[in-house]
């Protein structure tokens, strides 16, 4: 027990938590934007893989880091468009389409990776985002290391939380997105194209997911491995439910999960002798299921989630 408290008090633990929270923030915000517009996006796992591969590959081929982030976002948006064509325009099952996108997007990422780097046995590396110390603030004891010596992409992730909140709740386009997830007919009746709003939301949300994936290969690690997303996308889907579709709570949930992951790495070192490491690795998945059970009765989910809108459909 005292071991646990020791871990929780180290700045290194908090620095790690804040670092690895970034992909969860991007992924959860992305899924949240899609679902606020009424579209469940189970392509997230594959789209994060695409982001991880394409951002990394951009840099590996000589591009700069921010260019890689943009490229990853663009690729994510492209797969988002594919998801939107199927679920928004053709009204097909959001569940099955999402799984199909995940299968397609991740296998295509692996294929392209192998095509471009056919014989790499040890994974090639890039120079990832470096930690960016904010002058003065990073000199603060304890807090400085945890909060103010992170990579630029981490700061971006954290800034995205209030930004997404502001856009969703304080701007006309955010109102249109939320209304599309509540009652698409109402959006259409006010002269706004529901299909366009939903398509846009899914594309933007998917871009967020892809940036989350890119963070893993470009800021957390410096190489692309097979299966490195490892269920993080599904955890984000659970986090959206846990967050009741609120960006602020999504940040809290993501921090909780990142903390768990940081803790697990450290706890393995101290308790690994007694508890097999697999049980530590299991924690995020078990916690995700528990989080969904916990929130099952409490949330007010978007009323038109999973409901396709067909223009001019005769009722």
């Amino acid at each position, binding site marked *: 027990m005292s071991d646990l408290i020791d871990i929780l008090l180290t700045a290194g633990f908090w620095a790690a938590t804040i670092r690895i929270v970034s992909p969860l923030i991007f992924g959860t915000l992305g899924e949240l934007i899609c679902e606020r517009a009424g579209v469940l996006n189970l392509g997230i796992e594959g789209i994060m893989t695409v982001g991880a591969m394409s951002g990394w590959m951009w840099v590996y081929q000589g591009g700069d880091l921010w260019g890689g982030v943009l490229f990853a976002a663009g690729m994510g948006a492209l797969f988002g468009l594919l998801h939107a064509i199927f679920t928004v325009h053709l009204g097909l099952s959001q569940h099955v389409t999402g799984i199909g996108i995940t299968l397609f997007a991740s296998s295509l990422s692996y294929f392209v990776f192998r095509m471009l780097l056919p014989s790499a046995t040890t994974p090639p590396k890039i120079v990832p985002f470096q930690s960016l110390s904010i002058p003065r603030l990073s000199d603060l004891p304890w807090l400085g290391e945890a909060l103010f010596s992170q990579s630029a992409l981490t700061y971006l992730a954290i800034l995205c939380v209030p930004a997404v909140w502001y856009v969703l709740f304080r701007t006309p386009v955010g109102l249109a997105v939320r209304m599309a997830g509540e009652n698409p007919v109402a959006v259409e009746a006010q002269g706004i194209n529901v299909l366009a709003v939903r398509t846009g939301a899914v594309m933007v949300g998917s871009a967020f997911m892809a940036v989350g994936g890119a963070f893993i290969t470009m800021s957390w690690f410096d190489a692309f491995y097979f299966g490195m997303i490892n269920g993080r996308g599904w955890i984000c889907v659970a986090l959206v439910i846990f967050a009741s579709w609120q960006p602020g709570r999504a940040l809290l949930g993501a921090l909780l999960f990142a903390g768990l992951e940081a803790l697990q790495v450290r706890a393995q070192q101290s308790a690994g002798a007694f508890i097999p490491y697999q049980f530590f690795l299991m924690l995020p998945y078990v916690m995700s*299921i528990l989080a969904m059970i916990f929130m099952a009765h409490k949330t007010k989910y978007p009323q038109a989630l999973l409901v396709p809108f067909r223009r001019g459909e005769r009722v």
Partner: protein
Amino acid sequence: MIIEPRPSVSILRAGLAPVWAILFAMALCAVLIAWAGGSVLTAYGLLFKGAFGSAFAINETLTRSIPLIFTGLAASIAFRAKFYNIGAEGQLYAGALAATFFGTGLVTLPPFLMIPFLVIMGALAGGLLLLVPVLLKTKLKVDEVVTTLLLNFIVLLVVGYLIEGPWKDPMSLGWPQAASIIDEGVLPPLLAKGRLHAGLILALAMAVLMWVMIRFTVQGYEIRAVGNNAKAAEFSGIKVNRTVIMTAMISGGLAGMAGVSETAGLKGYLTLDLSPGFGYTGIAVAMLAQLNPLAVVPAAIFLSAVYVGSDAMSRAINIPTYIADVLVGVSVLAVLCSVMFSQYKVRLRA
């Protein structure tokens, strides 16, 4: 754009839908093959030869199709009731765990009892694993897709722990694998040569059984009614939750049998690479079969041929084997589309 149902869908049009989807997927993969510098015709020729070109190849294709028939059936039955079980991968390993637990010496029975015993235990394990998501869905309305997906990861970690720890075979020279299934429990080979085993018979029997259930029985009727309109089903007196739970048990059970069949039929022991994603590919099988249990068999053989053939193809002309996974992913999306176009007319003007 406006979408309206066709007044009637001919059997030919419906039957051709998955064929269009496969052709589309192959066309898209042709682009990737061309990018890799291969000749498309040569590549697909090699793929076909690799899958069906010799007795050995056919034997291998059929062997690989066995788990896909099981997982394809698992997805078909569940999707019929609109219960999206994406956890066949985890249920497969649950079945394999049960086969290992009971089949490595704990119980010894004569083969004609031992094999059915292991199959039933594996099916029970698969069904039990799915009990958690299905109860969460029916009682608390927790989305089953996410819970079944997350359980896949959890089960794999449990398997990893067991075969590296308490169940590790001391004779395995350090490899993480469990002890072998005892001889009484091994599914006998069907042919003198090759790896084809009696799991195929079981898989085919299950396909027929599921077809009969869906088409001719009260239970099948209730599954279809619940999947198509749960409110109307409830109004007419069908116990919706009970039907969904029963469907889930059958679905999980079928996936569990895949695990028994792979452990006791093909490998002989449990490892972490028992399934290269058979659970996920099963979804593609079910979609290509349009959830028809009999059509699952050809769909599974087709996708198995893609995997087996692409191994041969990529060895010969240096195309990454992931091409097979791409083809599977695209075919899920393409078949969604083509089935829709077979049932609906799409006009561009309102």
